[in-house]
């Protein structure tokens, strides 16, 4: 061999991933027989000690193992933090304390009962204080009306970007004129104390309301949801995303007759590394959408998700996504599905639960199309709840999760219907099953294999009871026409009759009233059956009950 004298000139090109294939093949073969070239390649890649370092660094990593769960948590939060920075690169200094003495930023009042003054506004009292600033009740001497005034906190006001953003978002929000959105009258861009003059709305928030009184009743949840949806719709139409829909940002009249959305877009103005304001690391991000939690770009459907969480909270008194630590909350928002609100409050009707579920879809494309569509749905539902006798029940809401369950449900149900139908068709012609058992089994098996046979082998014990139960289902679901379920019950009872006739040889199967009462189930194909069941709102729950009868 030529170990000592090998001067293969192309070894270095092997490290280039674009090395020509043929050359690489040749060199690979050469390497197998030439230790000298092997060593050269080894050295070219990295010095000896770096190879050794790689070995020890990469292999001893196992000494502290992250559980898959923790690794995932860290990954998720890392990408969250990273993307927050990318999308919101303007970072105001948020380190100043929140509890500053706000009276110092006011001028002496002109009116003896006022606590201070800015321009023509006499300040009367404090309405609220948060990380962003302070909200005061004021009186506009020029226009002679009471207003709410939000003054940006001094440490934020000192920050040019935060100040500009505050003004920009407020100006955008000022374009929204809607009874359910706090009206913004004007924006003052003074560098020392920029402030917004707003309509003086109710002073209670939904958070206070639920904290004090617990979950709201269904109609109020729907009324409030409807108002928020229609307010959002007005804002979304001009491209404004709220970004921070949560109970604390919805003001409500004492009698719950009217709610108002506040702080449109303002969350963005003080987004601190994307952390403080949205709740990461310091507060609770419970109402964030998954796309927000991942730090992705948002569209208006993000607000719909937050509204879903809010409705869930109103209906149950609990946030849908909880966790002791922010890590857990973010995880849950991104990966988990909340427990059925009906398990927390049995008074929540299935319709509302489905509606909330649909708002809480992880994929924005699976939520309601837009806030306007949602408000139409809520409006119809509210009308139905208020006049159940006169209004048609709303169409069932299908979310991807209910779909999944329903698919299974509809499958089984269609089976019951279709197999029964085929039996009825079969018996409509006066055949003599006892004399022709082969025909029977082949006919059923051709369309509905073994299960059809087994259903018929285990007929309904007490058809009347089944019908009663089906009726009660129909009541529970508030469907006024529940004909299909009744028909199903009748079919089953007919089956019972048929069966007894089957068991009694030689007896003619034309039972009493058989022809007259035959339900209309023309040529049911299983897909038709599924559709018809879907339309009638048959879902997994009543499906299971039906199955019980089999």
């Amino acid at each position, binding site marked *: 061999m030529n170990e000592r004298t090998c001067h293969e000139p192309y070894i270095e090109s*092997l*490290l280039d*991933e674009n090395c020509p294939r043929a050359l690489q093949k040749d*060199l*690979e*073969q*050469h*390497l*197998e027989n030439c230790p000298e070239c*092997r060593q050269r*390649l*080894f050295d*070219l*890649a*990295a010095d000896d000690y*770096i*190879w050794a*370092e*790689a*070995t*020890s*660094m*990469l*292999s*001893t*990593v196992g*000494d*502290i193992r*992250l*559980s898959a769960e*923790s*690794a995932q*948590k*860290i990954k998720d*939060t*890392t990408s969250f933090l*990273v993307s927050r*920075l*990318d999308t919101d*690169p*303007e*970072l*105001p*200094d*948020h*380190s100043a304390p929140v509890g500053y003495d706000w009276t110092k930023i006011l001028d002496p009042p002109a009116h003896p009962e006022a606590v201070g003054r800015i321009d023509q506004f006499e300040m009367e009292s404090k309405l609220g204080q948060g990380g962003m600033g302070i909200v005061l009740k004021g009186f506009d001497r020029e226009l002679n009306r009471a207003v709410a005034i939000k003054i940006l906190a001094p440490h934020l006001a*000192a*920050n*040019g*970007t935060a*100040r500009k953003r505050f003004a920009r978002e407020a100006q955008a929000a000022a374009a929204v004129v809607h009874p359910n959105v706090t009206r913004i009258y004007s924006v003052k861009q003074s*560098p020392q104390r920029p402030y917004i003059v707003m309509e003086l709305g109710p002073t209670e928030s939904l958070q206070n309301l639920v904290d004090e009184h617990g979950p709201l009743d269904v109609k109020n949840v729907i009324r409030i949801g409807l108002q928020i949806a229609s307010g959002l719709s007005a804002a979304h139409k001009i491209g404004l995303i709220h970004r921070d829909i949560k109970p604390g940002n919805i003001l409500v009249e004492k009698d719950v007759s009217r709610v108002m959305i506040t702080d449109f877009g303002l969350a963005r103005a003080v987004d*601190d*590394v994307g*952390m403080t304001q949205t709740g990461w*690391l*310091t507060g609770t991000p419970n109402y964030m959408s998954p796309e927000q939690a991942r730090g992705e770009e948002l569209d208006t459907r993000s607000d719909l998700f937050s509204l879903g969480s809010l409705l869930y909270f109103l209906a149950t008194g609990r946030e849908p996504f909880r966790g002791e*630590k*922010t*890590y857990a909350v973010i995880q849950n928002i991104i990966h988990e599905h909340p427990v059925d609100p009906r398990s927390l409050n049995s008074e929540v009707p299935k319709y509302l639960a489905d509606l909330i579920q649909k708002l809480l879809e992880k994929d924005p494309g699976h939520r309601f199309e837009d806030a306007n569509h949602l408000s139409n749905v809520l409006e119809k539902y509210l009308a139905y709840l208020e006049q159940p006798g006169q209004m048609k029940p709303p169409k069932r809401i299908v979310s991807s999760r209910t779909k999944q369950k329903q698919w299974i449900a509809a499958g089984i149900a269609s089976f019951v219907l279709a197999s029964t139908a085929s039996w009825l068709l079969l018996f409509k012609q006066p055949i003599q099953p006892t004399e022709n058992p082969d025909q029977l089994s082949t006919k059923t098996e051709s369309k509905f294999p073994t299960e059809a046979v087994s259903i018929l082998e285990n007929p309904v014990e007490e058809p009347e009871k089944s019908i009663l139960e089906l009726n009660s289902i129909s009541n529970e679901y508030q469907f006024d026409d529940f004909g299909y379920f009744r028909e199903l019950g009748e079919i089953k009872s007919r089956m019972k009759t048929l069966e007894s006739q089957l068991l009694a040889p030689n007896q003619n199967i034309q039972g009493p009233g058989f022809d007259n009462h035959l339900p209309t189930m023309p040529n049911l194909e299983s897909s038709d059956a599924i559709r018809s069941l879907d339309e009638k709102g048959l879902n997994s729950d009543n499906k299971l009950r039906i199955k019980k009868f089999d």
Partner: protein
Amino acid sequence: MSDPLKTRNSLILRLRNTDDAAAWQEFLEIYHPLIFRLARKCGLQEADALDTTQEVLTRIAKAVNRWEPGEEKGSFRGWLGRITRNLVIDFMRSKKRIPLTGNESSIGKMIESNPVIDETDQVYQLEQQKQIFLWAAESIENTFQPKSWKAFWMTTVEQKTIDDVSKELNMTRGAIYVARSRVMAKLKKQVQRHLNLERSLPLENSHE
């Protein structure tokens, strides 16, 4: 008031800089798991370690907000690395003792036998180095065919013989030599790139 536009927050400009945004991402990718692993090394259970990690990150984030470029020498990366090191080491020292597990490299043993060297600092450095390698490996892995990657991993990290790996992966020995060297060259570059950006580094290489 003096010119309000000049007050504070040159930071805003700085982080608009995509380079610094990239630095922040890289920082989190490396240091987030690192802080967690160090917390575990201090004897914390997973849940507590996650809390601690969150705490430390919060403090880092706050510090980032206070940072004025120009006041500090060096890059944003370097600065981040330093404040993190100080914060974490403070935290580790506040724990009574750092249990060094048995399978440490020679550095770990050296620390135990040499009380003069600051144990905490050494542990930090070791873990940091490991995490940088791990991050580098992770970040380049998907630029290779899985087979090439395995050829590197099995021969270099798991230290299996070329013949065994050849059989296991159904690759020629020559192909394994080439694959592992390509991975190594890229890994080295990635580690160096990070270290050079963060500080001047022990891994100088004559072939670059």
